[in-house]
């Protein structure tokens, strides 16, 4: 078997193991959360019997490890359980499957993350490469200063500034990004413009700076000097000789930022009233809707693990030492 394949399989197995450990941690963390769903729903006036009956109905009377096994067993089969919300003391059960609850929200989040990535990643790479090419120039300094200031501002502030200028003073884009499953693609794109722009401004700096640093780091290498002494143009030296050796750190930062786009954008979602998974999780925490919180946390963990795995694999594949062993 080619060594790269075995390394990839190894990493994949390692990723699954990590996910398993994370599931244990998530479960334990939620166990330790103060407060109780039944009491939160039934209120202080509830009698002990009703509380006990309700707990039994939800399965909360079982010991923790049994509930954990049931949960993980379900997850493995794609069943994340049933949401607690919608149940009430009235006894009418309007609760929904966690999957049905999360799926549309996750789709929205992935859509926003997707369009942001499509804008931000090429932009960051282009800025980073050109800044490295003309390092020390006015352009380089301008790019650095701009990206640094956008990352230094809190994201909600960036969002409000954009709303002020592009939503209010010059109403080019809508300030609210309320989309639903029925919204057609172009309409959806139009409504997501401001949140996507906000997120782009937030993540470009990281990736651009790493691209620039990774390339400049290599410019002192003997093989770069050799390339220059072969009479190659500066562009060729950077694109053909420096960049192929700089992928590993760049890809890692990209993966990190993409993960952030999926798991960390709740503030932006709130500002633009965007129905993403971040808001869903925050709501679920306040109502102590444990199955939803667990499912969200697990999805977030899986996102991180998957993206980092992908970054690792790309680093390996771009390393000729691993790709072409002796």
């Amino acid at each position, binding site marked *: 078997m080619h060594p790269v394949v075995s390394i990839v399989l190894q990493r994949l197995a390692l990723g699954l193991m990590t996910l398993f450990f994370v599931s244990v941690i998530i479960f334990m963390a939620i166990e330790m959360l103060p407060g109780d769903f039944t009491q939160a729903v039934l209120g202080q006036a509830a009698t002990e019997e009703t509380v006990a009956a309700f707990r039994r109905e939800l399965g909360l009377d079982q010991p923790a490890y049994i509930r954990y096994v049931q949960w993980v067993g379900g997850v493995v089969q794609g069943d994340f359980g049933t949401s607690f919300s919608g149940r009430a003391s009235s006894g009418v059960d309007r609760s929904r499957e966690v999957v049905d609850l999360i799926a549309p929200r996750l789709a929205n989040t992935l859509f926003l993350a997707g369009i942001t990535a499509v804008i931000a990643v090429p932009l960051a790479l282009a800025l980073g490469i050109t800044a490295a090419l003309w390092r020390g120039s006015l352009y380089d300094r301008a790019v650095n200063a701009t990206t640094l200031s956008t990352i230094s501002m809190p994201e909600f502030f960036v969002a409000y500034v954009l709303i002020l200028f592009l939503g209010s003073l010059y109403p080019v884009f809508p300030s609210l990004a309320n989309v639903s499953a029925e919204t057609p693609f172009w309409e959806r794109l139009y409504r997501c413009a401001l949140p996507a722009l906000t997120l782009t401004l937030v993540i470009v700096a990281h990736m651009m700076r790493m691209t620039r640093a990774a390339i400049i780091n290599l410019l*002192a*290498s*003997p*093989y770069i*000097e*050799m*390339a*220059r*002494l*072969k*009479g*190659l*143009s500066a562009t*060729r030296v950077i694109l*053909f*000789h420096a960049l*192929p*050796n700089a992928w590993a750190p760049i890809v890692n930062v990209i993966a990190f930022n993409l993960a952030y786009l999926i798991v960390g954008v709740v503030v932006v979602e709130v500002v633009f009233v965007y129905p993403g998974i971040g808001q869903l999780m925050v709501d679920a925490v306040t109502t102590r809707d444990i199955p939803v919180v667990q499912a969200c946390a697990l999805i977030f963990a899986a996102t991180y693990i998957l993206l980092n795995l992908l970054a690792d694999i790309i680093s390996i594949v*771009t390393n*000729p*030492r691993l790709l*072409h062993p*002796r």
Partner: protein
Amino acid sequence: MSTEGNRAELLLAMRGVRIDGFADERWHEIIKGVDLTLHKGEVMGLIGESGAGKSTLGLAAMGFARPGCRISGGEIVFDGIDLMRASERQKQRLRGSRIAYVAQSAAAAFNPAHTLLDQTLEATVRHGLRSREEAERDARALYAAMDLPDPDTIGDRFPHQVSGGQLQRAMTAMAMASRPDLIIFDEPTTALDVTTQVNVLAAIRKAVKEFDTAAIYITHDLAVVAQMADRIKVLRYGEEVEEAPTGEMLSNPRHPYTRSLWAVRSIRKPGETSADRVLEIDRVTAAYGTVDVLHNISIGLPRGKTVALVGESGSGKSTAARVVTGLLPPRRGEVRFDGVALPADLKGRTKEQKRRIQMIYQMADTAMNPRQTVREIIGRPIAFYHGLRGREVERRVERLLEQIELDGSFADRLPGELSGGQKQRICIARALAAEPEVIICDEVTSALDQIVQEGILKLLMRLQKDHGLSYIFITHDIATVEAIADEVVVMLQGRVVEQGLKEEIFAPPHPEYTELLLSSVPEMEAGWLERAIARGEGGRVLDRLAEGDRERPSPR
């Protein structure tokens, strides 16, 4: 070879070249008005110590200054083109087409991300000299001319899949690809083992002759330059010392500095032995992970004498040192000190056992904490092993500095404020501070210039006499061995090939490998290379010895 027969037209004229380097917030002149003229097809040898400005001058011949350097004055005219006034674009057109460069470490100068072939033909194709197909065909022909194995397919390999000597030859092929008028060879064999060096030198010589290319050959090894150059120029502190045709320079150097360069190889002490062994390595087998790198070796160190471990990189010399110091517990066998077996692992040894064996490393730079003063560096083992404090330590440090021929003012300096030779002296003082009986010297002079080397070797010999020290001297440099060793141990691939008194080892008859090792060491007289090549190519002997896996990729 001869200049007389070939009074060809002028190719390169450098007059009064001045180059500045930026350091400590200001510009310093590092080349102070050097002239250099080169005719077509001529090979000029440029020698001098490190820091003499050889590489800087060589690169200036391409109109190139490294980042942090600038060409501040003089004239550089290449075949009628004034490189001082030429635009960057004009110079780019020359580089890689009419002037080519061969770097010191091919392993570092080849881009790890691309195949050899892609890099070999890159300049030729980008400059529009040949089509890609033509260039590929030509590259294969050049690989064959450089005696590279599998010339048709070696180009498809990546640099890490090829050995150091092969890479260096591939780089010469790369420089040849555009059939340049001038090639700058910047210490192309310094990073190689002697046995590999012969083949690379032969390949370079052949290429330069065949294509009638002019060359500037930069090196600090006199014997090498004697084989390669028509004329030799000696540089020191960025100034020319003297220049003469090779034969004349070898037989009759005029300047005292040049003569001192020649004289370095003159230290030689007779080898002595003694039956009293202070240290014995007894049938040791050691491994990194599961791979055995030492196979059942036995080496004895006579008290007060020097045993030199010689061999190429990867022969297990340094590993043997790691076993002695306890850094690498052996899998089998033991190390005895004064007849008593030492605990295999460093953790099991007492402070007293550790004190008696000290170590000096090749890179004095990295062996010292850059933020500690010399006083702290030398003072630490004094306090640690002898429990001294305050004024006592102070006095000892001063005494040690005196022993290594440095005055007391050095105690307050940081390593960054010392020269290479001074740094190595501090490392010697640090080892002495423990008052050891055995010192392991791991390539301690390899990174130093000839004259500095001589000083260090003399110091080590004097300290040996004064303190009755025993040395294990690890080196790949045969000249150093001839200078300092009593006994010699020749190692090859983790095995001891031969050991005994220096005079016996160096006198024929030799085992095959020792013969190869000794005959590969360049000698100063002209014509040595031809004879070495004629004697049969070193590579073949090695191949037979190691059944083909000798030239394996070099670890980087």
